């Protein structure tokens, strides 16, 4: 189908900016969809950036004009208020509940404890958790931190550092140059930086266009954060469990808020450059759990900010949400530990994971732990489904 007249060149709209994820995670979240957006064909290749380019959309998606006119991403104080005012009472600081949370988590892990210590703690991260709960075999195939760079990954890494720059110094000069320089300043991203240097001119131009567009959106919409709120970016969080045999690990893009006195005072924001995915909510719940355990106080809100569209998915933190997250984490962490110990040689694959289901020695079907975790996650989402989302709002 030919491009719509007046549209910009189609290349940026077909950007491969969505990280390749497990097939189970390929469901586009149905909540917080822009009002009136079609369910079919609304995927990574056809998402219309709604801000500032209202007359631009891919040819095969016909948006009703009122949708294009009405929906605008939150910006400035509105965005800030959306984070600060969740519509729910902030969760109280309650040491007894924190203690029960830990007991639940460690109790769930101790039940199927196997003799024999591992030389190093089993490290649980949001990605490992999601992967192993979706498909044990997939986790084995992909390993830990061994992903080959892609344009989507590069876009995500660049947007992460540009967001840090914006929060810390208040501005971005040349998004691509600043981003690459930021990635180069430490050795951690060297493989990605080398990969970027080898990109073809066309791919590089494509990446630059998308990074620039998203960075401009960030600069246009993100408010300056008051230093007194103690904003910190890429905040590392660790929680040792079972006397150090296991470690929950997380790194959040933005944490903001002073230490709590009697109720949750910290907001956690995850920044995503790709498409909205159902597992992002579970990631937020995991962050909320880790922050609660390490600080002995829950954050009052967790949110994902989608730089590609300007959507903000906000979820108030409640104690039921935290307990559900603890059950899910215990289920996944137990599987990870068993896998590292080599205790269970039978690998179960999700039926939706065609690649892994075809591997030798792989049994198709959900693991009991994963089924329980999915149920827990569903109840958590249900508990918080009443929360408003920014997509429900329309610009004044």
């Amino acid at each position, binding site marked *: 189908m030919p491009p719509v007249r007046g549209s910009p060149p189609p290349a940026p709209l077909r950007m491969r900016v969505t990280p390749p994820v497990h097939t189970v995670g390929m469901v586009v979240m149905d909540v917080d969809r822009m009002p009136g957006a079609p369910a079919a064909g609304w995927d990574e290749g056809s998402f219309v950036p709604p801000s500032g380019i209202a007359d631009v959309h891919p040819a095969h998606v016909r948006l009703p004009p009122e949708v294009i006119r009405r929906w605008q991403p939150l910006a400035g104080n509105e965005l800030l208020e959306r984070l600060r005012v969740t519509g729910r009472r902030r969760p*109280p*600081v*309650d*040491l*007894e509940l924190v203690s029960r949370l830990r007991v639940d988590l460690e109790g769930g892990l101790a039940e199927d404890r196997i003799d024999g210590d591992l030389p190093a703690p089993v490290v649980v991260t949001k990605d490992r958790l999601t992967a192993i709960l979706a498909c044990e075999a997939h986790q084995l195939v992909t390993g830990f931190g061994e992903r080959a760079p892609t344009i989507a990954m590069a876009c995500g890494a660049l947007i992460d*550092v*540009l967001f*840090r*720059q914006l*929060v*810390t*110094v208040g501005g*971005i*000069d040349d998004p691509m*140059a*600043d*981003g*690459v*320089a*930021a990635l*180069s*300043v*430490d*050795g951690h991203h060297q493989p990605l930086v080398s990969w970027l240097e080898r990109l073809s001119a066309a791919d590089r131009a494509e990446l630059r266009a998308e990074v620039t567009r998203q960075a401009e959106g960030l600069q246009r919409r993100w408010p300056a*954060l008051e*230093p*007194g709120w*103690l*904003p*910190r*970016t*890429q*905040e*590392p*969080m*660790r*929680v*040792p469990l079972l006397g*150090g045999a296991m*470690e929950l690990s997380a790194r959040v893009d933005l944490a903001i808020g*002073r*230490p*709590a*006195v*009697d109720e949750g005072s910290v907001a956690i924001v995850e920044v995503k450059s790709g498409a909205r995915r159902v597992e992002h909510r579970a990631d937020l719940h995991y962050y909320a759990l880790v922050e609660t355990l*390490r*600080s*002995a*106080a829950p954050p009052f809100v967790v949110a994902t900010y989608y730089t590609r569209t300007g959507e903000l998915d906000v979820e108030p933190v409640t104690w039921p949400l935290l307990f559900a997250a603890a059950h899910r984490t215990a289920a996944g962490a137990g599987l990870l530990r068993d896998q590292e110990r080599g205790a269970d040689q039978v690998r179960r694959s999700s039926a939706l994971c065609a690649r892994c289901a075809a591997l030798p020695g792989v049994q198709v079907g959900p693991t009991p732990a994963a089924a329980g975790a999915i149920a827990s996650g569903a109840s958590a989402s249900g508990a918080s489904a009443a929360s408003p989302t920014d997509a429900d709002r329309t610009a004044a």
Partner: protein
Amino acid sequence: MSGPGPLAAALERTRALIAPPSGADLHPERTDARSRLTAALSPLVERLPAGDQVVVTVPTLRQALVDPDRLARPEEPFRWKSAFARRSLGLAVVEACASGRFRAPARAVGPIADEAVAEWERTGWRTFHWEPWLAGLTSGARAMVLADAVGWATGVWSLLDWRSLASDAQVGGAYDQWVSPAPRTIRLKARSEVRVPIPGSDPDTAHEPTSGPRTALVSVSGGCPTPGWADELAYLALVAGLRSTSRPVPARVMGLWPDAGIHRCVEIDAVALDRVTDRVVATVAAVVEARLAAVPAD
């Protein structure tokens, strides 16, 4: 059961840090530790080639415990990274906030970095050593260094109640060092993030050979406490005590792990000094063994 929240926990932590010491100054124990180290280390390092030296730091103690094979590997040539600059810049930020000059790390970090670079450009003097490196970075890279420092400083800033600390608390400062009089140089190095005088802990100068109040040291680490953390904290007190015999041995060392929101405290007594002295000897022995094993046979 509600509270105490993190803010109240910071207050309690700070009170514990500056609480009166439980025991007397450890001057005789320090003298004993020095003698033991000198006697035990000399024969160990004699086996090394002339000109070799052994530097012991907290990471060395840790490696000897968990990964002794790494002790013989040559160190990578030094190259500035954000991770190296964030501590010293972060400490300067914390100091500026503690002194009341700035109210929050995010507000302080830009001016502090700019002032350091300007001072180096004006005088050539490098207070932090990273000034020329930072001055040469582009805006994107510089922003990452500042962001890392803000994160580090905010973690430290949030875990203590700085208003409760005496105004002469020292944030940052040089390494404590002690060089053993052995045939090959053995240098014990240790650094603390904060040194806090404990109120009312001045020794009785008529009976004690030291002067000045006893201190509490604060050490900041990433991640979670690792096995052997207690000796590693005590090591800071040992080196500080060996370095200056005219000052009291630090009374306690508090470890902060901001990533995990954990703190641990070690009271320095004769047992703690004994244990860490043994660990230093064992570490130097492991370094020597690793180096000798790495030398190819003729």
